[in-house]
């Protein structure tokens, strides 16, 4: 699929903001199955300096500082890219999940080191015995890893409700687990926490969904906004994405922007304002399939 993606964030400040600092992660990654032809971040008013670099996880991080008083800020990312559809992996042919866990203790190859980045507690995701207990139902002894993760994806989708009003950006996983309602960020964090509680590597992926579904298919939850899902590591296949909010395995309908240990590693846009202004925030995401 070829897409044009437009992600526009508008801040309306009640009072003038004199100085503000921002970091954004809005440039889609280049992957074997995803080719980003073009991407640029436009900022209005134009800041004097904008700089970009790859962060620790290889995401493009753009930072800029607004140095003149302003009462409105627009950050718009436009990207053209192509995502290749891939056949789903062989779920039942993947190695038993326990051997995956054990393989991490082996000699630290680049692959293993990469996986180990995502197996420990991070700022927003802390593993615990309760979550391990919940996850264990999908992980009976000897079950192939990917089959087990697929089952966990299905159960999370079934046990938890999508509800935009139930949680906020900072809601901890444990609260979501108890209230059973939340948004894609919470679904992804929960699945990551479950996998890590079993000693399995899992990472947080942020990106987009195509806005209009193919004919005859339902519109997916989370379109028209940033989306997030989970990725599990398999020593044979590498990283495999799972979308617990939609109970699906992402293919060419999911566009990957960034990944990290949890939301705080990849938040699309983050800033600090000097001036103590309250603001109204408006986000628009347009994912247009071109061909």
């Amino acid at each position, binding site marked *: 699929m070829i897409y044009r993606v437009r992600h526009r964030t508008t801040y309306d400040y009640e009072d003038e903001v004199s100085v503000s600092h921002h970091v954004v992660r809005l440039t889609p990654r280049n992957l074997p199955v995803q080719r980003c032809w073009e991407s640029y971040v436009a900022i209005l008013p134009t800041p*004097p300096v904008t700089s970009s670099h790859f962060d620790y996880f290889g995401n493009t991080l753009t930072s800029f500082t607004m140095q003149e008083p302003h009462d409105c800020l627009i950050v718009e990312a436009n990207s053209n890219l192509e995502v290749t559809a891939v056949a789903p992996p062989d779920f039942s042919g993947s190695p038993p999940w326990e051997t995956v866990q054990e393989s991490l203790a082996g*000699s630290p190859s680049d692959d293993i080191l990469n996986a180990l980045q995502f197996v*420990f*507690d991070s700022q927003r995701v802390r593993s615990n015995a309760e979550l391990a207990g919940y996850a264990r139902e999908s992980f009976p002894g000897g079950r192939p890893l990917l089959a087990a993760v697929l089952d966990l994806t299905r159960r999370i989708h079934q046990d938890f409700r999508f509800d935009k009003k139930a949680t906020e950006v900072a809601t901890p996983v444990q609260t979501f687990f108890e209230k059973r309602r939340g948004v894609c960020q919470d679904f992804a964090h929960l699945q990551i926490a479950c996998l890590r509680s079993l000693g399995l590597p899992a990472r947080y992926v942020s990106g987009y969904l195509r806005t209009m579904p193919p004919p005859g298919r339902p519109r997916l939850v989370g379109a028209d906004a940033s989306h997030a899902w989970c990725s599990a590591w398999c020593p044979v296949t590498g990283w495999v994405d799972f979308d617990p909010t939609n109970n699906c395995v992402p293919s060419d309908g999911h566009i990957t922007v960034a990944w990290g240990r949890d939301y705080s590693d990849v938040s699309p*846009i983050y*800033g*600090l304002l000097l001036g103590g202004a309250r603001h109204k925030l408006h986000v628009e995401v347009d994912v247009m399939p071109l061909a």
Partner: protein
Amino acid sequence: MSISPDTLDAPLLAAGYSHTDGVYDEMSAAPGVLRPHWDALIGSMSALGADELVRRWKIARQRIRENGVTYNVYGDPLGMDRPWNLDSIPLLIPPSEWDSLEAGLIQRARLLNHILADLYGPQQLLRGGLLPPALVFANPGFWRACHGMPTAVHPYLHLLAVDLARSPDGQWWVLADRTQAPSGAGYALENRTVLAETFPDLFREFQVQRLASFFRSFRDHLLNLSPTRHDNPRVVLLTPGPFNETYFEHSYLARYLGFTLVQGADLTVRDSRVFLQTLDGLKPVDVILRRVDDSFCDPIELRSDSFLGVAGLVEAVRAGNVVVANALGSGLIESPAFMPFLPHLCQQLLGERLKLPSVATWWCGQPNPLQYVLDNLDFLVVKPAFPAQGSTPGMEPVFGGKLRGDERSRLIARLRERPCDFAGQELVNLSTVPVWSQNTLTPRRVVLRVFLAASQDSWIAMPGGLARVSPALDTPVVSMQRGGGSKDTWVLSNLPVEAVTLQRPRGQPLELNRGEGTDLPSRAADHIFWLGRYAERGEHLARVLRCILIRLTGEFGAFGTSEWDSLMKLYDCLASPHSRLSEEDPQGHLDQWRDLEQEILSLIFEEQRSDSLNAVLSRAARAVAQVRASLSSDMLRVASQFGAAHTSAWGYASTGEALAVLNRCIGTLAALRGIEMENITRGAGWHFLGAGRRIERSIQLVGLFRAIIVPLSPRTWPTLEMLLEVADSGMTYRSRYFTELQAAPVLDLLMNEEANPRSLAFQIHDLLEHCRSLSGRPAGAAWPVSKQAHLEEAAANLFRADVRELCEPGESGLRKSLDQLLAATGAALPALSDAITNVYFSHAEMERAT
């Protein structure tokens, strides 16, 4: 070998010093046998005699108090500003022992720096299996945003501290590495200063290695780090602020090294460069010596809940525009979990044997060490392996052997559940050192903190250190937070010691810099302004209270209704919102008299009462604390007297004592004013101080006039006399008008007479001078011109009016036109003050946008 103590001829002071079996004592090799380097010291001290020691130490402690050396203890009733606890006997280290320690320390600095450079760079140590990945990836101290920084040319560790302990066999062991933002070097220097001044004779006699060259080298190193401008780099010391436990040290070091002390809010990042917000605008910053933990240094890329840092700092470092020392991320290697790997890493990375061993440590993140810790729990101390994450407080070290049944099983469960998070460490039977207590020497446990600073391609060790002693012989933990004491450490030399100062090397001509190098942060200006206001308010209050209190005692004791009324009128000028006097008229004179006396005592001493003298001076002291580093040591010594009205038992104070306190306060405040007038450069800071004073005194004078002169009363002279006394103008008045007291001449002298430094006209005139000076400065663009104009107009109207006419009795028993003119001026003053504060104190909170 057995020696009977009484046959020995140990120096006087060491007689009866108890020797604990199985413990290394720094001073005595065996009961009654002193080690050679101690023998001479104790001999010389004994020669001075106990009385002389006591006398000298009393002066030394006075000095510590006056210098404001404090260590803030969290959750302590003494809390802020607990005086520094220093022992008079130094810890001695002989030359040969120091040489090997020094070599081990420098090697350790190289090793730790090497490890950091790898982990924040290529991570070969993980790939090669030399360090377990979990040690780094599970560690919240590993900041991914700091990975891949352009630090290749600089070390990660510019200053590090190592805590050393000596085991019974005499071997030194490393207890902990302090790589984050090590504290203590400044306290060590202050300890040295005090000891060298107290025992100049001993200090010369023992060829003690000086500390100054270490600090000079460190300062030069920091100046040379400047990434852009080599001729005149600006280095700042970043502190979390006065509530930090070691804030004294931050301000002390900043002044000693000649760097500007700043808080996060004083710095700003523009165009990926760091600037200091000063009264003269933004000034570029080249090097930041930080005392803020790395995680708090940038709310954008590090901990987002931090208010102590500088938004955008990481990006500025990444852009190569500023150097932060220690490098952001350096706290990683403080983790005790690294210790077991150091011997092997040293061999692999440096090709050398690790010279200075760490205390035996087991990181539980690996199966065998975990099992060892579980099996030997009784003999180990269990520590968190990693720094605390987020807002959850870290675990305190736990002594396995001291745990009761359920505590023990809970710890074992935690160890099994999250093994990565813990490390077990062998308990060291710490050596003992003599401390001088109750006129005798008694042994205490000791831990020595030593310091290393980067210097060119290597590190140099400070020849000395901060020795910390336990509060009691049987306390196994040595910590300033737990009430321990400290000692100076004397590294002895075989060679004559050269004196060093911190002056610049000779021969380099300095560029002449007239005017002022004002690096005064804008935030500091606000504190200085308020210091002026509080100091003046304190003086006014002290004078009014003294005026009343004197009349309640002695000769004035018995008086008639009119005197009483005047007294109450003066009291009413204070307009205390917390007055303890009952509204109703009390029955008899005696009760009135007692009630007013109690009320005055409360107004002097009661700390909880926000308008008491005690509270006002506390606020002045807090303002001083905020700007310590910009004030001279003489000024700080005077300010240390602000606590004169501190007493826990004010209810029992006699009026005599209270009067003495008031006189002392007035004297202290006058001394402060004297330093202001004679010893401070007329820079922006001085103008802010002056403006604050003038505004406050004007407000007080206007209040007095409105309360005392505006209302007509038949017998005004007692009140007028008090007014002259409070305004310190009685002498001038009497020299002109003798004893005849009338409203018009009093008002003329106190309001209009510009030659009288206590008059309102003088205050306003001087205030406007300060305003002109401040608004003309580069940062004066935002000066509240209109508020200043309001005041000028109101004041002009007041002074233009004829004093005699103003004092003519009007209707309804009031001098109405005087009142109106005073009210207009009285309103313009606080308005100007608020506006100045708004312009210079941009404590606009940072707000988050997600």
